[in-house]
């Protein structure tokens, strides 16, 4: 069968796989965003113990492969605790923790890129640290972080394909299952690759637009 014929024949399955990929990405990124903000804030804290917690988390995430993290959470933890974890849950936990670690570093970098004078000016007006952080520092930090945030979104979307290994039926796994029936590896992987490519291009276009909207022109002060 030709590629167009394969697309028509497998359209609904491919679309379901893509939907699963997008769903995993979105849910994981929402959780990862909260983790990243939390641990990013810890990593710029004045308290050494809080910084240490953030450091350990980030180091573990960065120091181990995503595949090992997925196996550890899907097979390792249930074995140790005697519980059952379905693949989707394990996948979301893995991706959230993984992206959360990288996002924590992005948040830390963003916060640290804002000049110290901003925090001092806010504090000198009588604002408590929390308000100075949320109203003055973070809005500026997020602006500088935007390209890195979008980059992480794209990485996480692609990382979902690794979760096919624990049996989640996202786009990559769907492709493999179809090939198991029709043996048309070249055509099917082409279709899958193009689908990833298109969705990431759409994301990139949207993000470029957001980036442009957000640049109000920064002063260095």
């Amino acid at each position, binding site marked *: 069968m030709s590629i167009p014929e394969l697309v028509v024949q497998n359209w609904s399955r491919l679309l379901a796989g893509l939907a699963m990929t997008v769903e995993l990405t979105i849910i994981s990124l929402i959780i990862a965003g909260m983790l990243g903000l939390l641990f990013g804030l810890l990593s710029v804290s004045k308290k050494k113990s809080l910084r240490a917690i953030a450091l350990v988390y980030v180091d573990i995430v960065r120091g181990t492969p995503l595949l090992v993290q997925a196996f550890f959470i899907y097979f390792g933890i249930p074995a140790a605790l005697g519980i059952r974890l379905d693949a989707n849950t394990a996948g979301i936990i893995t991706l959230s923790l993984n992206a959360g670690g990288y996002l924590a570093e992005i948040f830390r970098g963003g916060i640290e890129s804002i*000049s110290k*004078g*901003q925090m*001092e*000016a*806010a*504090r*000198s*007006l*009588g*604002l*408590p*640290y929390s*308000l100075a952080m949320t*109203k*003055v520092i973070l*809005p*500026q930090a997020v*602006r500088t972080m935007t390209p890195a945030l979008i980059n992480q979104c794209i990485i996480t979307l692609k990382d979902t394909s690794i979760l096919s290994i624990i049996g989640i039926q996202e786009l990559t796994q769907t492709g493999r299952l179809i090939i198991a029936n029709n043996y048309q590896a070249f055509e099917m992987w082409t279709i899958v690759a193009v689908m990833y490519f298109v969705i990431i291009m759409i994301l990139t276009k949207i993000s470029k637009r957001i980036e442009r909207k957000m640049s*109000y*022109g*920064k*002063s260095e*002060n």
Partner: protein
Amino acid sequence: MGKVKIKNLKKSFGELEVLKDINLEVCEREVICIIGPSGSGKSTLLRCINALEVATSGTVEVDGNDITGAADKDINKYRQNIGMVFQQFNLFPHMTVLENISFAPVTLKLKSKQEANEKALKLLRRVDLEEKANVYPEQLSGGQQQRVAIARALAMDPDVMLFDEPTSALDPEMVGEVLNVMKKLAKEGMTMIVVTHEMGFAREVADRVIFIDEGFIVEEGPPQELFGAPKNERTINFLNMVL
């Protein structure tokens, strides 16, 4: 009655002792200019007054409130009464000029948004920048930014204003407009502590000039005395270099 009372203030950064033993009392409506070579500790002294730097020992009182021993929550309260103007302006770049000024009173729920905006416009008129209310700081010159920064500090109705080398980052032609605003403020009776290299301003506006070197107050007195007939050798040397 002293507005600001500093007793035996010491501040070290690690091994380096920046302030060795500072005693200073500033009265209500008094304008103090602090001068001295760079690295002498003048900015650190100023920053100890609103606890941007935590004193190593000694006490700082503002309006009878103990700044050095206060809990975080109280510090936030006390700082509302102590305005500060920075060398680098430190305006919030993501807010318009008007938002910069009304931001703190609104965020701290001291004023409604409308009240704060009205007050901000009044302050902008005072610093002669009313027409810039809705632009962003980056569209302003350095001198204009610093005047907005002064208005922002005044929006909290502070009892004391601290100025940390407010004209040092400005192009020469913009120094005058900022100093004029400060002069007006001094005339209106604001209690001011100004770290500055502008000897002309100190001579004209200060009630008292403090010369700091190597962490000590070396000499202090009315400007005509300190500039006209300095007694200490280090003061004489410093003034010879800058005047």
